[in-house]
């Protein structure tokens, strides 16, 4: 299971090399991985159906009890199958859509990393690893939205998406930590299996607000919805995968997952119902009033996300069944429709629906697939979308709270969505031929196989709903509810209120569609006016504010004079430390000088003399030389106190430091007096103060001993466990090898820093 999740990253590492080898067929080649992952997850289904859930454990840090656990139950397997299944087709599609693009290999690297992060998110059992994968999806989404990085709007909106989701992520981290603290465990399977009555806990309100902030930003709920339509600046395969079928559903996943633990409180369910319904209606309305085909689809995604959120809030058995069905139906038709939109854009050269028409003559296969997918979007029989919509209406009619308001919002949204479905399927393909920039012809096979298969699945699931129901969906509903359930999915439930509502909304929707070209311009004008007061404006003003404050603060604190930086740094650090020392520990000046030797005094005096000379002299060479003397005196101290390794290292480092200083010495300008006497005395005072605080700190640390000294452990175990007699070296490369690994990475960073500074300066000199 660990390999299944990490395989995306591993394939991403070799993807550029594969691209060089396979050329045009890279999409098909890479799609083998998600296809095999789909098969693997499908193979887990029977076991999950029998046991309810499967837990895969991998020890990671046994000392801290942190394990990398994966939980496969109905909900996570449904998501995993959607991610890997749709991912297969997206990779094939992208290979065709972006064929010949300069950065295609880079695209696949990021895309595969995204897929692996998403899989990790839905399969993780541990709250911390869920958060890590959550942020990874945000970062890969940023890189994918900004893929056409030479385009300013792409960069701007990629940054917007990143900020909104990462700000939410920060809140989510706080919320998850609170959840872990409230329930006493960071393991999802433990939190979900024990009945904790979290809603009575004092931290409940804060946790709900934080977690919902994270989920609402990720899943584009009102008022955080503005980044999603702007994310359409990404290439279409990205929009089809991330911003409709998978990434934006991450928030939905987390809310559904935590619902059984947190759902008993009213704040959680009411907030979900309210925001979900508002988002649902807003999304449908905005979709109906747009003309760009990708924008229309983006807004309808917002509508779907709102619907899903609302259903989680309602929380009844029927609502959860509706949730799962709507989730699957939406992923199928939305992925298909986005891919069709991309095909249309690729073939006609425009994204504007008003310019397209009558394309069914030149693109018959595309038209058929689009019509199938649009029927599912509108929720018409015999497609799976119809079953989902019927269940939606039924569950809302049965809702324990606000049933009337919710059903009105849902019916309103579905009326508008029928119109939207017509916009996407009827307008471009039927009617009189529009004038498009490029002469259209049928889309290539690679671009059609994805939407084709997805739409056929929507049809098949609709005609035979017992197939997905028996296979996985019933288990998924059970895992969301936390108890087993019997679902009853069918196309025909008899003539009841939901059916009549559907019929009614269909009629009204069709009439709205007929008058669309008259309504749309005025609707668009209203939207543009209203958006001047909307949340997106708030975002831009907030970003401007941050930049202004940062510039002001930098002008004051970092005015370019190195001496000021040093002064501030030293004064603040030692001031705070000294204050704490004084107030918490007190100063104890009893020093025992009876067993000191004359040579120790000699070395101390040498140190003092060298330090004074180094700071007071006017000769650069002299100050470098006396710093060398300082270093050697310290080395002598080490050797006197029998630390030979330290002494040798200090000697060598001191020699090399002097050599390095000499190399640059002669390039420095003439010695100049840059500071006034007042400044020099001020600096002297701060320096003596810092030295004094440090001395007192060290003296204080000599009398404090909270724990037993660890050196006895090393003395005893260095031989038997470390196979060595030089304890210092054994500690460096064996007991504390991880620290040493970090240190040599720091060394390499320093070297790279120096290298780039020297090379940059050389470039500047060559240019001037």
């Amino acid at each position, binding site marked *: 299971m660990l390999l299944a999740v990490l395989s995306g990253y591993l394939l991403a590492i070799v993807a550029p090399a594969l691209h060089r080898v396979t050329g045009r067929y890279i999409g098909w080649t890479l799609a083998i991985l998600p296809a095999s992952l789909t098969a693997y997850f499908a193979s887990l289904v029977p076991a999950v159906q029998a046991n309810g859930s499967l837990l895969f454990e991998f020890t990671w840090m046994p000392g801290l009890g942190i394990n990398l656990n994966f939980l496969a139950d109905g909900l996570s397997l449904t998501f995993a199958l959607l991610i890997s299944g749709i991912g297969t087709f997206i990779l094939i599609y992208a290979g065709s859509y972006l064929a010949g693009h300069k950065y295609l290999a880079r695209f696949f690297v990021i895309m595969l990393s995204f897929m692996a992060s998403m899989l990790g998110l839905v399969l993780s059992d541990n709250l911390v690893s869920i958060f890590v994968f959550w942020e990874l999806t945000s970062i890969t989404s940023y890189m994918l939205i900004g893929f056409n990085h030479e385009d300013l709007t792409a960069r701007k909106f990629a940054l917007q998406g990143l900020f909104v989701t990462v700000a939410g992520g920060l809140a989510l981290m706080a919320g998850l930590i609170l959840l872990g603290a409230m329930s006493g465990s960071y393991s999802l399977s433990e939190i979900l299996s024990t009945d904790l009555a979290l809603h009575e806990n004092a931290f409940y309100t804060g946790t709900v607000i934080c977690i919902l902030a994270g989920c609402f930003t990720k899943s584009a709920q009102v008022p955080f919805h503005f980044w999603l339509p702007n994310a359409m600046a990404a290439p279409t395969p990205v929009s089809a995968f991330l911003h409709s079928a998978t990434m934006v559903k991450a928030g939905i996943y987390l809310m559904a997952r935590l619902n059984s633990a947190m759902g008993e409180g009213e704040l959680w369910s009411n907030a979900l119902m309210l925001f979900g319904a508002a988002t649902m209606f807003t999304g449908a309305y905005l979709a109906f009033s747009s003309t760009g085909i990708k924008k229309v689809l983006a807004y309808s995604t917002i509508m779907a996300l709102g619907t899903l959120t609302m259903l989680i809030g309602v929380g009844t058995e029927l609502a959860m069944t509706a949730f799962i069905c709507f989730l699957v139906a939406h992923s199928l038709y939305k992925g298909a429709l986005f891919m069709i939109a991309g095909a249309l854009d690729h073939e006609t050269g425009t994204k504007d629906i008003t310019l397209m028409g009558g394309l069914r003559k030149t693109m018959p296969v595309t038209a058929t697939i689009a019509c199938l997918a649009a029927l599912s979007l509108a929720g018409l029989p015999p497609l799976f979308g119809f079953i989902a919509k019927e269940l939606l209406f039924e569950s809302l009619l049965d809702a324990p709270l606000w049933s009337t308001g919710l059903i009105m919002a849902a019916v309103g949204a579905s009326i508008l969505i029928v119109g939207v479905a017509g916009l996407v399927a009827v307008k471009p393909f039927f009617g009189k031929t529009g004038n498009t920039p490029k002469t259209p012809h049928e889309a290539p096979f690679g671009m059609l196989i994805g939407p084709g298969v997805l739409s056929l699945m929507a049809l098949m699931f609709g005609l035979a709903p017992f197939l997905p129901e028996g296979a996985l969906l019933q288990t998924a509903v059970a895992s969301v509810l936390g108890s087993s359930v019997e679902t009853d999915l069918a196309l025909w439930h008899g003539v009841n209120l939901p059916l009549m509502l559907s019929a009614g909304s269909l009629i009204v929707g069709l009439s709205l569609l007929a008058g669309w070209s008259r309504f749309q311009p005025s609707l668009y004008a209203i939207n543009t006016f209203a958006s001047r007061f909307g949340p997106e404006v708030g975002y831009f003003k907030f970003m401007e504010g941050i930049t202004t404050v940062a510039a002001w603060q930098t002008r004051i604190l970092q005015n370019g004079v190195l001496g000021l930086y040093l002064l501030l740094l030293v004064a603040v650090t030692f001031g705070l430390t000294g204050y704490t020392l004084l107030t918490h520990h007190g100063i104890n000046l009893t020093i025992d000088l009876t067993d000191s030797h004359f040579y120790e005094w000699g070395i101390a005096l040498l140190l003092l003399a060298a330090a004074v000379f180094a700071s007071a002299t006017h000769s650069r060479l002299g100050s470098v030389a006396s710093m060398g003397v300082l270093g050697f005196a310290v080395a002598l101290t080490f050797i006197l106190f029998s630390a030979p390794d330290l002494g*040798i290292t200090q000697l060598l480092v001191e020699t090399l430091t002097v050599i390095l200083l000499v190399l640059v010495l002669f390039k420095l300008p003439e010695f100049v007096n840059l500071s006034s006497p007042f400044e020099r005395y001020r600096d002297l005072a701060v320096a003596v103060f810092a030295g004094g605080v440090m001395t007192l700190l060290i003296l204080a640390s000599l009398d404090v001993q909270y724990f037993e000294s660890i050196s006895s452990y090393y003395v005893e175990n260095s031989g038997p466990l470390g196979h060595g007699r030089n304890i210092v070296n054994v500690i460096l*490369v064996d007991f504390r090898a991880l620290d040493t690994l970090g240190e040599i990475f720091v060394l390499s960073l320093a*070297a790279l820093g*120096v290298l780039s500074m020297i090379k940059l300066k050389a470039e500047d000199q060559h240019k001037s």
Partner: protein
Amino acid sequence: MKSNTLILRTAALFIMPLQLMFSVFLLFRGHDEPGGGFIGGLVAASAFVVYAFAFGSEPTRRILRVAPSDLLAAGLLLALVATIPAFFTGQPLLTAFWWELPLPDGGYLKLSTPLIFDIGVYAAVLGTIMTFVINLMESDE
């Protein structure tokens, strides 16, 4: 930084190889006596610095054969490689593995992953310092 003194050049030709051998000696004895990767690397770097002061930066690059930053990267890679054997046996990373090969005179040759790690540290330290010195020397040309 070219130096025209004959004495330094002749001395460098003698001192450098001896110092390099000494640095390897310090590296390998580190586990039981004072020494180890850091100290060995520093001594080796000093050897090359002596050569650089005597002959200049271009001959030093030639005698080093690989670019100093590559040496640095190789050191980091070696240090990471030392963590891998533990991964295959399911133990936490950086668990040390020891192999004792019997020698003809009855003693043992102890090879281990900490030794590989130490060699990595040696190369990293040598690479860092040579990067500093060679590039600083070349920066005014």
